[in-house]
């Protein structure tokens, strides 16, 4: 009898599902962009009653493939377009820098592009060789496929295969928590995230790169060399409400949201 009650309930619930037939825009992709996009979506919904924007997270590749397949109206991609992706329409919503981080106790003053390159190739294996403490270096690296990794490899002209890391991490926060408290470790994460975490007392320090301090400000000023685009993509020229959302997302109305997520707004 209990079963019957349940089935009836489920059937009712399913029927109820049919009733809410609102226009929903589906946005999927990069987990870096997703929190920002969710906030943008919420503000957009407030301004457009009756419109729903569902933001789903996954990864940049997912954003691209979902947009291509039509599974999503809008894809989120946390890097610049590749040649093979010119079939999509790209819209930049923000910029983000990638900063090298070490433990707060690590006294290394700064690193040059060449030094980083040699550290990750294990040609430099002790911090004392770059002006730091006499400790072996623990390499914290990103997992295959991450946009941060691609940006990093591209800038330092490294091949993923040449790098034999000690620790491989996924998301930014994991990288920060792995480096924090380990004076041997070096890693690289989103600059905004790192700046925020360092500011609230997490035991990390952003290492100046080629003499430029790593900060959201320097990324914003275009001085920081290691930066990436945060994009949204559509498969065709956006129409109607989707076009409005994209317009909204790249407008000044969301700059405070972009900054709240520690990214750099696009001028």
């Amino acid at each position, binding site marked *: 009898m209990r079963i019957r009650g349940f089935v009836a309930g489920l059937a009712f619930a399913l029927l109820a599902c049919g009733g809410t037939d609102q226009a929903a825009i589906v946005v999927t992709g990069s*987990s870096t962009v997703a929190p920002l996009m969710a906030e943008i979506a919420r503000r957009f919904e407030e301004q457009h009653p009756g419109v729903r924007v569902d933001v789903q997270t996954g*990864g940049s590749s997912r954003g691209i493939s979902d947009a291509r397949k039509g599974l999503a109206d809008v894809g989120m991609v946390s890097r610049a377009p590749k040649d093979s992706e010119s079939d999509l329409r790209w819209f930049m919503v923000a910029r983000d820098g990638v900063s090298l981080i070490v433990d707060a106790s690590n006294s290394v003053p700064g690193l040059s592009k060449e030094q980083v390159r040699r550290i990750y190739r294990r040609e430099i294996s002790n911090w004392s060789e770059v002006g730091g403490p006499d400790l072996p270096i623990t390499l914290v690296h990103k*997992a295959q496929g991450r946009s941060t990794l691609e940006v990093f490899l591209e800038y330092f002209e490294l091949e993923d295969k040449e790098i034999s890391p000690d620790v491989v991490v996924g998301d930014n926060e994991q990288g920060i928590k792995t480096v924090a408290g380990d004076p041997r470790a070096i890693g690289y994460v989103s600059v905004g995230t790192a700046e925020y975490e360092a500011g609230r007392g997490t035991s990390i320090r952003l290492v100046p790169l080629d003499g430029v301090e790593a900060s959201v400000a320097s990324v914003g000023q275009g001085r920081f060399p290691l930066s990436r685009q945060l994009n949204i993509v559509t498969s065709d020229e956006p129409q109607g409400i989707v076009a409005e959302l994209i317009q909204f997302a790249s407008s000044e109305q969301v700059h405070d949201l972009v900054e709240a997520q520690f990214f750099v707004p696009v001028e």
Partner: protein
Amino acid sequence: MFQWSKDHLLLLWLRLAASVCAAILLLVAGFVLLEAFEALRDIGPVRFAADASWHPASEADQGLYNLVPMLSATLFATLGAVLLAGPLGIASALFCQFYAPAWVAQLQRRIIGLLSGIPSVVYGFWGLVVLVPLIRLQAPPGPSLLAGILILAIMIVPTVALIAESSLAAVPEAYLLGANALGISRVGIIFRVAIPAARSGLLTAVILGAGRAIGETMAILMVCGNVVAVPESVFAPVRTLTANIALEMAYAMGDHRSALFVTGVVLLVMVVGLVAVTASFATETTHAESTHG
């Protein structure tokens, strides 16, 4: 054998329900195989064991797909976790059944229940913040097979403990009273009466624990270091098969994505192997004691 004329509806439903349950495996396995097929066809199964390393996304050459290091990591991590959690879980079950007063046992059960419900990300978090630095003091870098084993062990203790306890609880009271009447000590009763009588359930508990350990993803991802290499010691960072999927799936395309499904197939094969091994020495239990013969 039963007369089912009055119960044919029930019978039909039970068979249907059970078949649905079995069909889920077919669906899951079929789907994973389908997705893996592309890679198995294009890359060939041999290269998943023979390639120089795991670099599926490198564009220069067609990518490298060696899964053996991750397979070994999964095996070591699971084995270690089971060796730790098996005794711990069974000890907890024995404690609840034979040692603790009722209210303490009840409390212990709730603690175990809660342990089972702590999301793996919290375990991973805790491992990363507490366990890894402790290990780092001993042998840098810290994230390691050992950290994975410890976290996994904590995570599967509830599975082992709860199932072990329910199988110990199923040992007929009469056996225990009988043994008591013979003046056998508590230890004797536990080891010579209760544990033998409950052994199939205890085995199930450990197997389910092992299955859980093989499949655990998020926590292991956070504490193991994720470096693709056959571990040389327990302090070496490793990447398990599940971590491999979780780390890269969201970012993978084409052959890379398909190769991750091959990882899933390897996991499935492992689980099938585990089940086959246990099936070969597990005895089927029947219902509790019967009065006729």
